């Protein structure tokens, strides 16, 4: 077997390893061992994804991997290109850092005796996210959407408090509505095209579009599928489930929610655009315009809600809703550049928001568990690393140069040139949203760094958290300065998805 054959096994092996980890964890005894094993497995998957990324990026190619013995129109397939590998790498990296940084909160928040089960759910979540990235089969995508929902619901309710169960219910119901729409959408699509693999469906759709048959049904089906996935990814006005889940979950879980889980749904949407429906069909049916409007509304409403919020975790959740709006605005521009900017923002937001969640956890801990922004006064002096991390994250969210957030906003603004009719409104909303971002991040940063003389007795920040935040800050700045290769990977990835 040659090296290429080994590399083609990486997508399947990553998913297998994640699910295998989930099966092994319950017998590992206590939470600490489970966490160590988890760190090792996630790192291994991350390294494998990095190897895959370098291989595919240098060769500028993508491949499909046959699952089982049956070839294309019958069997199940995985597909990997540079963009998929980049996202898998980012997901593993952010997950490892978030869980390491938030490990002390995990031990405190998750019910004792349930900690290894928490990691089982983390594995299932990672496995389902990797499958959503790599799969080439729409029904497999549906099954793993549901696995993702159940695993993440268990992660939110791991705290066991009444309000966490209410938040879980909220999240579950909205997610089930989304997957219900997706399921009826793919059933209708199957009944029209007779295929489940993305490439075959696309071929059938192209043939049908030429004959003009089923034009109305297509509009309905595409609407159901895209809206179903968008509802799950907490697009405005469905961002409330994100807010309730975000504010009750332990910091590591909220970092994973807005950093990764929602992003895997958004990437599924991008795959639907390119691999199933073709971007021209999406554009001609004006689906991009709908997403564009909801994206813009999300940007403004999310930021205004964050501005009004006095609790730090709620503020971060509303800020996530606004950032999801940015990504949908990029998708809604409907051009190649907008898509590249949206994909870059997926990475930038994953790194930034996960760090902000961990830092917020650290700052709350340094303020004796108070969540109000006013009561965090001087918390940055008590937990220095978390304070610096929060400030850097805030600057990145606002879009200050040298941070990852600046690059994505720059690319969003550049992408508008290629959609002249949407240019003015996009640039205006970008400007308004950035000013609003500054209006709520700067006062909280000032509160954190304002001097206080009273010496409260607080636990020292853990070393794991300091390292994790340190790496997050470095990543953020590196992404903000050496962004060119990442953009190149995304561009090649999108071109390969399109072809």
């Amino acid at each position, binding site marked *: 077997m040659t090296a290429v054959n080994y590399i083609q096994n990486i997508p399947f092996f990553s998913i297998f390893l994640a699910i295998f980890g989930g099966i092994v964890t319950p017998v590992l005894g206590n939470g600490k061992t489970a966490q160590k094993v988890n760190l090792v497995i996630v790192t291994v998957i991350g390294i494998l994804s990095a190897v895959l990324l370098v291989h595919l990026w240098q060769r500028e190619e993508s491949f499909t991997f046959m699952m089982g013995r049956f070839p294309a129109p019958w069997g199940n397939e995985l597909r990997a290109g540079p963009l998929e590998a980049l996202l898998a790498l980012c997901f593993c990296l952010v997950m490892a850092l978030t869980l390491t940084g938030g490990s002390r909160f995990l031990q405190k928040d998750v019910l004792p005796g349930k900690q290894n089960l928490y990691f089982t759910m983390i594995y299932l979540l990672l496995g389902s996210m990797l499958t959503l990235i790599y799969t080439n089969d729409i*029904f497999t995508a*549906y*099954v793993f959407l*549901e696995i993702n*929902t*159940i695993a993440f*619901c*268990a992660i939110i*309710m791991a705290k066991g408090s*009444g*309000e966490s*169960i*209410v938040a*879980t*219910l909220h999240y*579950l*119901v909205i997610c*089930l*509505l989304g997957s*219900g*729409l997706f*399921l*009826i959408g793919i*059933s*209708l699509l*199957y*009944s029209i095209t007779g295929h*489940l693999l993305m490439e075959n469906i696309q071929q059938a759709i192209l043939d049908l579009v030429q004959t003009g048959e089923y034009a109305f049904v297509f509009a309905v089906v595409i609407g159901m599928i895209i809206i179903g996935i968008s509802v799950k990814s907490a697009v405005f006005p469905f961002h409330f489930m994100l807010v309730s889940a975000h504010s009750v979950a332990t910091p590591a879980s909220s970092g994973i929610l807005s950093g990764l889980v929602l992003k895997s749904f958004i990437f599924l949407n991008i795959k639907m655009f390119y691999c199933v429906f073709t971007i021209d069909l999406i554009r001609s049916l004006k689906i991009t315009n709908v997403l564009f409007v909801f994206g813009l509304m999300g940007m403004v409403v999310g930021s205004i809600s964050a501005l009004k919020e006095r609790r730090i975790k709620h503020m971060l959740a509303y800020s996530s809703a606004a950032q999801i709006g940015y990504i949908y605005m990029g998708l809604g521009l409907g051009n190649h550049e907008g898509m590249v900017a949206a994909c870059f923002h997926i990475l930038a937001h994953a790194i930034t928001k996960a760090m902000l969640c961990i830092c917020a956890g650290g700052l709350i801990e340094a303020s004796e568990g108070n969540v109000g922004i006013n009561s965090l006064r001087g918390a940055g002096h008590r937990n220095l690393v978390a304070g610096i991390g929060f400030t850097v994250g805030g600057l990145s969210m606002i879009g200050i140069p040298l941070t990852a957030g600046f690059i994505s906003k720059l690319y969003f603004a550049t992408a508008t040139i290629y959609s002249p009719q949407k240019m003015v409104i996009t640039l205006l909303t970008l400007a308004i949203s950035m000013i609003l971002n500054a209006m709520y991040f700067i006062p909280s940063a000032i509160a954190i760094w304002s001097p206080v003389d009273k010496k409260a007795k607080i636990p020292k920040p853990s070393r794991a958290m300091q390292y994790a935040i340190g790496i997050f800050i470095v990543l953020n700045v590196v992404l903000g300065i050496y962004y060119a290769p990442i953009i190149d990977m995304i561009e090649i990835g999108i071109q390969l998805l399109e072809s």
Partner: protein
Amino acid sequence: MSNLMTNYYEAAAVILFGIGFMNLLLAKNLIKKFIGLNIMDTAVYLFLAAKGYITARAAPIIAQGTAARVEDYINPVPSGLVLTGIVVSVSVTAFSLALVQRLYKHYGSLDLDEIMKKAKKEEKV
């Protein structure tokens, strides 16, 4: 209209889907909400099963000694999808009901409005 009459399985499935969807979205009672979820999922299975069936053909089980001809059998893929879907829907329902049970133990009610009211009160304390 004649299309509706010939495709009455599909029409029924879509109506049931709508009923289930609205129930999941709007019902205040949690048990009713998840019954809505099940109606919604079952509607999709009805749709798929109706799509897979071809009149006057048998289930695709090949008995020994008979020649296997593709014209004799129905499409087996939708049946496979329905089975997978049922497994997914059973696990989601089990999870949701466990969640409802936890909520009932904690708040002593199945009414969503009442639970939200109590949860808000708890948060303030």
